[in-house]
């Protein structure tokens, strides 16, 4: 077996131990703030002193990670149930599809009221509302990834698990979650990047003309904007970038590099991901040994306990009864809230008003389509150029990743400033803030698509001396098509979500608004007009879902059928 080596405390141990200690202290210190007492009359002040920025950043990061943990837990539970229970699947998967399409930012004010009522005297309710907003930005994608992995779990692995008589607990971790690990980590990283947007939007919001501010980067930004403090605004942006890079270096890269060990042999890694943090951790001696022992001990204990629990089998009729009860409770819950929503909307809004909102939907639809078209025209050629030059791609991809992670809504006030100074018409100008966050998905996928064009095909095109135009027509566009569809769908969804915060932007008490569904929802939220919020979100969800079904799904199927390489 493993040779007995003399294992002593080395310098890697020292570095990692220091890092761990700092992390622990920071977590405790920052975590305490989450439960700080608060009264609506005296919201905790946000100071614009740049020295406080690390603390605010830490608070924001903590929020992000709590939301991530919740998202992972949700994905594992929801995905398993959907994949294993046929009856639940028929209900859960369409629901997930709707949840994914609903512009969650619109709900923020509603959920805030709910969470404040849970914990009215401390910041905790506000904290929960923010975490919930981030969660809704992350969870659906990860859940789909896990569900899909479970469905594609290879038959021999299932049979091997059955032959070995693994307990449910063992099968779940050793087979199912392990098989899904790679897509889960990658999806988690992408969703986490998207989460910053929701963080920035949810830390500081106005409901019923009252401002709620949680200590964090987003609130710092909001305060800076409110006071028209350009320097503080730039500070916030800078710290945001540093935070994103740090989280990437210290968390996601090690995770991605570690997750490589879960790669099945049928697939080949495109780029070998390495992480200096992971290497450092792997070079410690003492810490690895003790943490390793601890992990083994805890693992064994959990394994035994959970296997015992897993063996408890409820009698058939009890299980059926519980299933029926759950279904009944869920249906009642849904019907009740659906009816309440309908009643509020019908009693509060006139037919004319309702139709007007649909009209506003078309205005925003036009903007969202412009976002997709402009992003495509602008970024596809650039993405192809980067993708076809591997050296450039290696350099550019991390930059694009950071750009994509950066919450575009933090830049909206600066845009507002520019629009105000230049008197640019905001009806058209509002496309720009919407594009700011959404465009990256197009670029990302264009690079990936171009990198995926087999060298043989490029060489063939070279040998036949295809002129540039023909080359695009016969090679690049068809090869890129599936990637473009993926990127465009994501950009499309992102743009709808962004419209809620992009159609109303502010700089120093000056507000720019334009007619649109997003602005309608935001203004309704500020006024606390429940019926308008519900109707606005319903219309927006209907737009998103209708177009997904009628347009994007068909394109996606076409791409899968005809243009998939390899």
């Amino acid at each position, binding site marked *: *077996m*493993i040779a007995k080596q003399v294992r002593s405390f080395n310098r890697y141990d020292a570095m990692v131990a220091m890092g761990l200690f700092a992390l622990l202290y920071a977590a405790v210190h920052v975590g305490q703030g989450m439960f700080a007492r608060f009264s609506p009359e005296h919201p905790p002040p946000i100071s614009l002193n740049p020295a406080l920025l690390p603390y605010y950043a830490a608070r924001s990061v903590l929020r992000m990670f709590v939301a991530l943990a919740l998202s992972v837990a949700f994905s594992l539970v929801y995905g398993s149930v959907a994949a294993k229970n046929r009856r639940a699947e028929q209900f859960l998967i369409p629901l997930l599809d709707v949840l994914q399409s609903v512009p969650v930012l619109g709900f923020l004010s509603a959920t805030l009221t709910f969470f404040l009522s849970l914990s009215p005297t401390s910041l905790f309710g506000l904290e929960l509302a923010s975490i919930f907003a981030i969660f809704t930005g992350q969870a659906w994608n990860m859940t789909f990834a896990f569900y899909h992995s479970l469905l594609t779990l*290879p038959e*021999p*692995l299932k*049979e*091997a698990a*059955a*032959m*070995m*008589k*693994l*307990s449910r607990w*063992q099968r779940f971790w*050793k*087979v199912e979650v*392990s098989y899904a*690990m790679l897509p889960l980590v990658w999806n988690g990283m992408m969703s986490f990047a998207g989460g910053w947007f929701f963080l920035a939007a949810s830390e500081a919001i106005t409901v019923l003309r009252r401002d709620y501010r949680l200590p964090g980067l987003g609130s710092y930004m909001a305060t800076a904007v409110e006071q028209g403090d350009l320097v503080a605004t730039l500070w916030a942006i800078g710290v945001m970038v540093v935070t994103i890079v740090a989280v990437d270096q210290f968390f996601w890269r090690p995770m991605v590099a570690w997750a490589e*060990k*879960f*790669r*099945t*042999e049928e697939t080949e890694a495109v780029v070998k991901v390495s992480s200096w943090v992971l290497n450092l951790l792997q070079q410690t001696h003492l810490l690895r040994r003790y943490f390793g022992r601890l992990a*083994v001990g805890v693992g*064994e204990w959990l*394994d*035994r306990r959970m*296997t015992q629990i897993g063996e408890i089998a409820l009698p058939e009729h009890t299980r059926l009864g519980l299933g029926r009860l759950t279904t009944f409770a869920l249906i009642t819950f849904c019907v009740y809230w659906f009816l309440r929503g309908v009643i509020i909307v019908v009693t509060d809004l006139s037919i004319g008003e309702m139709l007007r909102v649909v009209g506003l939907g078309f205005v925003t639809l036009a903007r969202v389509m412009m976002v997709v078209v402009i992003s495509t025209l602008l970024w596809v050629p650039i993405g192809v150029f980067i993708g076809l030059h591997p050296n450039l791609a290696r350099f550019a991809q991390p930059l694009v990743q950071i750009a994509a992670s950066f919450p575009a809504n933090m830049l909206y006030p600066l845009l507002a400033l520019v629009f105000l100074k230049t008197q640019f018409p905001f009806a058209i100008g509002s496309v720009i803030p919407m594009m700011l966050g959404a465009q990256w998905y197009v670029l990302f996928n264009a690079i990936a698509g171009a990198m995926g064009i087999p060298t043989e095909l490029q060489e063939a095109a070279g040998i036949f001396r295809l002129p540039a135009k023909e080359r695009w027509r016969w090679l690049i566009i068809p090869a890129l098509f599936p990637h473009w569809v993926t990127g465009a769908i994501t950009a499309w969804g992102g743009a709808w979500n962004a419209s809620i915060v992009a159609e109303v932007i502010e700089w120093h008490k000056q507000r720019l608004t334009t007619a649109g569904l997003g602005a309608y929802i935001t203004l309704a939220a500020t006024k606390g007009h429940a019926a308008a919020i519900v109707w606005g979100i319903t219309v927006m969800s209907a737009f998103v879902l209708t177009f997904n079904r009628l347009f994007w799904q068909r394109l996606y199927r076409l791409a899968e059928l005809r243009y998939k390489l390899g």
Partner: protein
Amino acid sequence: MANRLVATAEQTALLEVREVTKAFPSPDGKGFIQVLSPLSFSIRAEEWVVVVGPSGGGKSTLLRILLGLIPPTSGEVLVHGKPLRGVHPNAALVFQQFALLPWLTVLENVELPLRAKGIPRLERLKRALAVIDMVGLDGYESAYPRELSGGMKQRVGLARALVVEPELLCMDEPFSALDVLTAENLRAELLRLWLERKMPTKAIVMVTHNLEEAVQLADRILVLGGRPTRLRAEIEVDLPHPRSPDSPSFRALLDDLYQWMTDPTRPDQKVVVATEISPQPFVPLPHARVGGIAGLLHILADVGGQIDLHELAHRLHLSIDDLLPIVEAARLLGFMEVKEGDLILTEKGIDWLKADILKRKEIFRDLVIQIPLIARIVSALRSTRNKTLPMDFFLDLLDEHFGEDEARRQLQTAIDWGRYAELFTYDATTDMLRAEE
């Protein structure tokens, strides 16, 4: 080995398959496709059963039914006389594509089934390491499957199956994803473990489409076939190990299996016993050239297909002794019968005469390949790498039976017939015989 069969006949079956059928929903969703028609057989202790059949013929489905991984549509599987519910409690499966968990090391993979049994960690490690050692993976405990070659991965698969000390070891085409040499190697090692009883396993059921593998390993071969699949034959293989692919009994059984595979009209047979064939004694060849045989048959045909031997000799101004070898040869080949001194042309003879030269050679070839001496020469030539052997090799072989002069004459006749049949050629300048393709 031979008494393994005898000793076990009286014991109760480890596993019994009773009237098992399987039907899958058809792809259009309207009806069902019957995959297995009622099948019954049992697995006894101390035997290695090999299931052969055409690919896509439900072999793997059958294996999964008897392991309880999928339920039969009708019929039942009995384990020690009790109906099987759920997965077989004391069996293990080795997969064609290994089905190892790529994120676990060799040790962790082998340990996993013990973990499922709730065995404490130290005991687990001990047992896993012992099995890893047994299958020859010592030193690879902390390697990941992706770092191993196909043969090594299958060793891990085997270790994972054996570590639970299963009563019944099932293998689904375990060697077919490996290259020829690796497969050969692993097969031999597995057989050795089995024969030396190093494996804690009472019986093995293996599915394969490799017939040679079946003959090599099986104590009993179940031949599946037909649509829907049924049990076409059950062959008890009573041959001692090691079984040489060149031995006549090996060849005979292999030929038999090929026949089962290729001839769907062959009537099903319940239990066939394949025993050792002692090498056939050489029947001396009558010294007649092919041209001589043809000439005789022509004459026979001209006189209406029947003539008295004496009259023929008289007509041809030959002595009967001159004529006899030719007559004997024609009779040996079945072209002619001899009845009360009369030579009678047979149907086969008439067909041969009527055929053109190519067809004649073909008929002739099919006949002479059954003559022991010629069959021996052909198989000896084919077993060499360049299909060539010196004439002296065969002379030495024949000396023992015939003496030197007769050996030479026998060989000359064999060469004449073999050449005509285009089975082999003879190069007089080098004195070499060479098999033709």
